[in-house]
């Protein structure tokens, strides 16, 4: 009798759910597929989610306690959870859209979050005139070639050769830059015709690489007699360089 009373009074029949994961309900909005990464002090977990046909809400198990939720779209398979992106040599940056937010799920069974991705790439369009790109090669070069796991610029060798598309415009997707060292190089054969401090002039024009959503850049490069003109219409700036062509 004493044993039963003692046992009954000591041992709760409730389930200990303190270690149970929290349920993160993600409203994917217009997005159809995302890579998610959840990192806390104890663990790093990741996976892919696809919006359902009937509902844009997707459920993910998350740890109890504070954690960071990262969402990545259009990474083209290059984003490595916990590491970020490091571009292969000669590759364009993917048109990356990201989101990062801190969530505290300490005292709840369920938390909600809404997908609101931000543009973490800049599309550079260059229209060349006065130069035969069949004879010349335009190359973009930068010491910033990726993103770390916190979506911040990562040092590396970024070098992309620009080729005009059918409309005559050269396009490249740039990774976020950590400084103003982005350069546009023009070669004729193996001879370097000019090295233009594109990053410095973007900075002078007011371009903000720390912006939440990076702006695209449109540039008109006109090769004149003994000079080259850079026209950044969206900022109303024109730069002239003297060079020998």
């Amino acid at each position: 009798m004493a044993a039963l009373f003692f046992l009954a009074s000591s041992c709760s029949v409730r389930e200990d759910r303190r270690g149970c994961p929290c349920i993160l309900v993600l409203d994917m909005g217009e997005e159809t597929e995302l890579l998610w990464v959840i990192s806390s002090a104890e663990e790093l977990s990741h996976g892919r989610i696809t919006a359902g046909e009937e509902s844009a809400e997707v459920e993910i198990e998350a740890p109890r306690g504070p954690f960071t939720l990262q969402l990545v779209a259009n990474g083209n398979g290059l984003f490595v959870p916990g590491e970020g992106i490091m571009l292969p040599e000669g590759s364009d940056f993917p048109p990356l859209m990201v989101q990062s937010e801190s969530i505290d799920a300490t005292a709840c069974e369920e938390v909600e979050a809404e997908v609101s991705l931000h543009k973490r790439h800049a599309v550079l369009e260059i229209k060349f005139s006065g130069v035969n790109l069949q004879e010349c090669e335009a190359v973009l070069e930068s010491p910033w070639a990726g993103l770390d796991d916190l979506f911040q610029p990562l040092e590396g060798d970024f070098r992309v050769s620009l080729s005009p598309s059918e409309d005559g415009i050269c396009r490249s997707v740039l990774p976020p830059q950590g400084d103003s060292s982005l350069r546009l190089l023009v070669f004729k054969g193996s001879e370097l015709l000019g090295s233009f401090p594109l990053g410095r002039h973007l900075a002078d024009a007011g371009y903000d690489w720390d912006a939440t959503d990076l702006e695209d850049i449109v540039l008109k490069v006109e090769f004149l007699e003994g000079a080259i003109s850079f026209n950044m219409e969206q900022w109303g700036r024109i730069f002239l360089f003297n060079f020998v062509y």
Partner: protein
Amino acid sequence: MRTKLLLALALCLALKTAMPIDGMAQNVALSTNLAGLANFGTMNLEASMSVARHWTVNAGVRYNPFSFGGGEDGNGGRQYRQRSVNAGARYWPWHIYSGWWAAAKAQYQEYNTGGFYSPETREGDRYGAGLSLGYSHMLGTHFNVEIGAGLWGGMDNYVLYSCPTCGRILDRGNATFVMLNEVLLSLSYIF
């Protein structure tokens, strides 16, 4: 922990003190409900004591910590877990520990049940009172067998989970209840 151990020992001492010496009328009994044991292995014990010609008072405990049929992650199991304590009184129209009786009791129950029709599991605390009726048949000088049944009702403070171990809370709140409390097929030892 120490307090509970002392309470348990005090209860046993009280029962021992109440046990009659040779020649005195029987006034203390211990019983266990076999039907309760068959109910997913719910251990139970009740002690009663006569206080008047037609009245006995009783106190009982039930304890069931078991789950059945669960997977490695604990989900998918069926359980009717509970621990409860009750105290009440019985009225014996003819003679105590003999014949028909009617009883009333107050009861507290902590429970964790589910997995029978779906993975949903309900946990909570119930506080209430109940009534029961039954019949006690003498098997011998010291043994009785009892049959009976009882209902109880009160307030239920509950949480409904989507599965037995982890899961989302589907519902929570307070609700009144009336339900079957016991089906008795008890064996009693009368000291």
